């Protein structure tokens, strides 16, 4: 598959083949250059890698446990469920939280005479060189230990092949799904469809969890292992269970399962390759705009969306109006917003439904009695509030170099931060209200609405305060690509780490609400709304006040960090 370079005047130099090796070297080089002279980036990368290693070690022990302890009957279950969850995680987590590392942006290769096949294999191989991929590989190698302990070296060999194939499957799934989803979000016509799709994927979590809970409640190992067997025949479990099958004497199953995996990988890569094409071509403009023609003359009125008629026509108002428009018009922000909306509604419903089932099913075995459900609700509200607020952790990164306009105009930091919070809250607060109502209806506890809204607002406000600081101090530049899930060169691990850290701090800042729910009992159902609102509002304003001072002092530095390097 030689690359045909059309250079009629250079017969002397035959074009050399471009192989996956070149892509890997290119990626490592870009990552290395990115670290140059940026000590904190290296530190974050090392810290993130250590976290990854820790997860890898934990996973390894888990997957090796059935083999090491000689409990062979759990082997298939651990492999099918653990491996399945891993694949599911690779499928969904990039969409929800972290994005994909686009150190090698496909759009950059658009002009090179590379066959698509070379490009896909090259980018795919480069994608394997990442901390999460290595961590997952290490963790799942635990299955090899199990297979070896149960079935000797032949089973171990099959397990190695299976685990490697499974890793390829994970990475291919992550790439294909984010790329396809990005393509969809780019086009305005199907963005609603995209929202529905994300909703469905998130909703998948629900039935799965219910099935799991039901199975746990029955404590029926036969049924559970039946489910594991079925999962083992889907791409989610096939690569991981092949080695176990050999160990348990079903040698014929292994080649079939590996074939299933290979077919799944091939299908995912073909899918990715198709959406890659559109990612490369459509790279110039991230959001095709309808050229609505209209008389200009009332520019100020045009800037303010109709829903913002009440905002004053001054600097603060302009900031709010522009931010509000950007949360919808910028594909990257819109993707974040939709994700928050969908996850924010589904997760609490699932947690609370599944959670109460869990509590009932386990009876006194589970330490928390039934009456403590307000605590569980508060905890899930904490999650939603934190998730919503963490969207602002890199709010200046969304703007990129356009932030220069604010530096030139000398926008006061406190006003800027308050305006950004206000604009985002215009979208989020109604959503939080919907979450509370939906949850109250689903749980059949309308009396809890006040407490839910109170905890939500309190967590959200505290999260805003924390993330405002993070956004001023820990901003990073986002690549100017069309993929709303793209992260910039190589530092993906560091950024996920930063996100987790700010979520953690936000959660800690909101813990008083959960404690109050646990200690105050019924009084809290009434007190939560006023107290939570005051807490959230106070925290947000305090955060804007303190971080605004910092922002005033480091506007040019912030501009430099969010400007993508070319």
């Amino acid at each position: 598959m030689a690359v045909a370079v059309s250079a009629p005047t250079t017969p002397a130099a035959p074009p050399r083949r471009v192989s996956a090796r070149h892509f890997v070297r290119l990626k490592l080089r870009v990552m290395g250059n990115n670290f140059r002279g940026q000590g904190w980036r290296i530190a974050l990368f090392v810290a993130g890698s250590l976290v990854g290693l820790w997860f890898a070690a934990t996973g390894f022990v888990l997957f090796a446990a059935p083999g090491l302890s000689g409990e062979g009957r759990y082997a298939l279950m651990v492999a099918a469920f653990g491996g399945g969850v891993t694949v599911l995680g690779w499928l969904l987590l990039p969409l929800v939280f972290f994005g994909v590392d686009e150190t090698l942006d496909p759009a950059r290769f658009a002009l090179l005479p590379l066959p698509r096949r070379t490009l896909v294999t090259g980018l795919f191989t480069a994608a394997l060189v990442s901390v999460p991929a290595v961590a997952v590989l290490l963790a799942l190698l635990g299955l090899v230990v199990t297979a070896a302990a149960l079935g000797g070296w032949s089973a171990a060999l099959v397990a190695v092949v299976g685990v490697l194939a499974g890793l390829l499957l994970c990475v291919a799934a992550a790439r294909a799904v984010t790329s396809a989803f990005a393509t969809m979000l780019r086009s305005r016509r199907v963005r609603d469809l995209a929202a529905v799709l994300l909703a469905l994927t998130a909703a998948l979590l629900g039935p799965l969890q219910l099935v799991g809970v039901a199975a746990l409640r029955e404590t029926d190992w036969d049924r559970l292992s039946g489910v594991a067997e079925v999962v083992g025949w889907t791409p989610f479990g096939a690569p991981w269970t092949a080695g176990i099958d050999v160990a348990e004497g079903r040698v014929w199953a292994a080649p079939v399962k590996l074939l299933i995996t290979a077919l799944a990988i091939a299908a995912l890569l073909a899918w990715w390759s198709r959406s890659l094409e559109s990612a490369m071509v459509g790279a110039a403009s991230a959001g095709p705009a309808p050229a609505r023609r209209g008389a200009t003359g009332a520019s100020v009125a045009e800037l303010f969306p109709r829903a913002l008629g009440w905002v004053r026509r001054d600097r603060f108002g302009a900031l709010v109006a522009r931010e509000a428009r950007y949360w919808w018009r910028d594909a990257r922000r819109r993707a974040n917003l939709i994700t928050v909306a969908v996850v924010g509604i589904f997760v609490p419903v699932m947690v609370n439904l599944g959670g109460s089932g869990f509590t009932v099913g386990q009876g006194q075995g589970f330490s928390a009695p039934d009456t403590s459900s307000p605590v569980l609700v508060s905890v899930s509200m904490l999650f939603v509030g934190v998730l919503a607020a963490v969207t602002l952790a890199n709010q200046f990164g969304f703007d990129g170099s356009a932030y220069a306009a604010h530096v030139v105009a000398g926008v006061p930091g406190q006003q800027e931060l308050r305006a950004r919070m206000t604009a985002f809250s215009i979208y989020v607060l109604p959503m939080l209200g919907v979450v509370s109502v939906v949850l109250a209806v689903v749980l059949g506890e309308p009396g809890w609405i006040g407490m839910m809204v109170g905890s939500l607002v309190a967590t959200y406000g505290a999260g805003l305060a924390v993330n405002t600081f993070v956004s001023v101090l820990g901003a990073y530049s986002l690549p100017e690509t069309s993929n709303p899930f793209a992260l910039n060169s190589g530092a993906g691990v560091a950024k996920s780490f930063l996100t987790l850290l700010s979520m953690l701090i936000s959660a800690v800042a909101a813990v008083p609400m959960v404690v109050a729910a646990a200690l105050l009992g019924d009084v809290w159902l009434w007190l939560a709304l006023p107290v939570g609102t005051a807490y959230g509002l106070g925290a947000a304003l305090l955060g804007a006040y303190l971080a605004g001072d910092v922002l005033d002092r480091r506007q040019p530095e912030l501009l430099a960090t969010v400007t993508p390097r070319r």
Partner: protein
Amino acid sequence: MTAEHPALALRGLAKQFDGKVAVAGVDLAVPAGSFYGLLGPNGAGKTTTLSMAVGLLRPDAGAAWVLGHDVWADPVGAKQLLGVMPDGVRLFDRLSGAELLAYHGLLRGMDPAVVDQRAAELLDVLALGDAGRTLVVDYSAGMKKKIGLACALLHGPRLLVLDEPFEAVDPVSAALIRDILQRYVIGGGTVVFSSHVMEVVERLCSHVAILAAGTIKRVGTLGEVRGDRSLEQVFVEVVGGRTATGEELAWLSR
């Protein structure tokens, strides 16, 4: 008070990126009412210098004054008098032209009625009215330069700092921009702009500074710098460029 102050004064501005010197101590005095061209080859440090002059990039050393206001000690005073069009910086381009102008006007604390009136006039003069509600991200390169210029002019600054205003602009738009800038200077404003296009500089500027490798090599009125030669000759001599001998790149010809 502004009469005795130069429109823009730079003293000892210096900047390094990762140990690599981009600007090595630039002194400049731009008289009020002048049309000042900052000339230099690619990578000379023009963008870096102008960014430090307007408060977008913190210098390692040195200071900058706009009509007597220290840009880094009294940013509010300085920035009010200043209109800037940076290079290689995005606009808030998910807004339409009119929305973008309204945004910039309100950011500057202007009265909404004045913003409406001036925005309509600017869009009309710059022939951007036809674009209607097209988002700026979908504008052509020339249109983006023009809307950027409109944003810089909207609040009626006393000093305009423009980085490469004529880059990637078609001749018709370039003539329009030239025209507007000349009217602005005749009206008492001061323009500082960077460029590496000799013809434009020769046609427009009253004063010229040639920047190369981060230092000012020549400075003065256009006549002083040019002498009896063409500006291009002076520029190539100062910058020390090489010309192709015809030996290299033989493979380019069949």
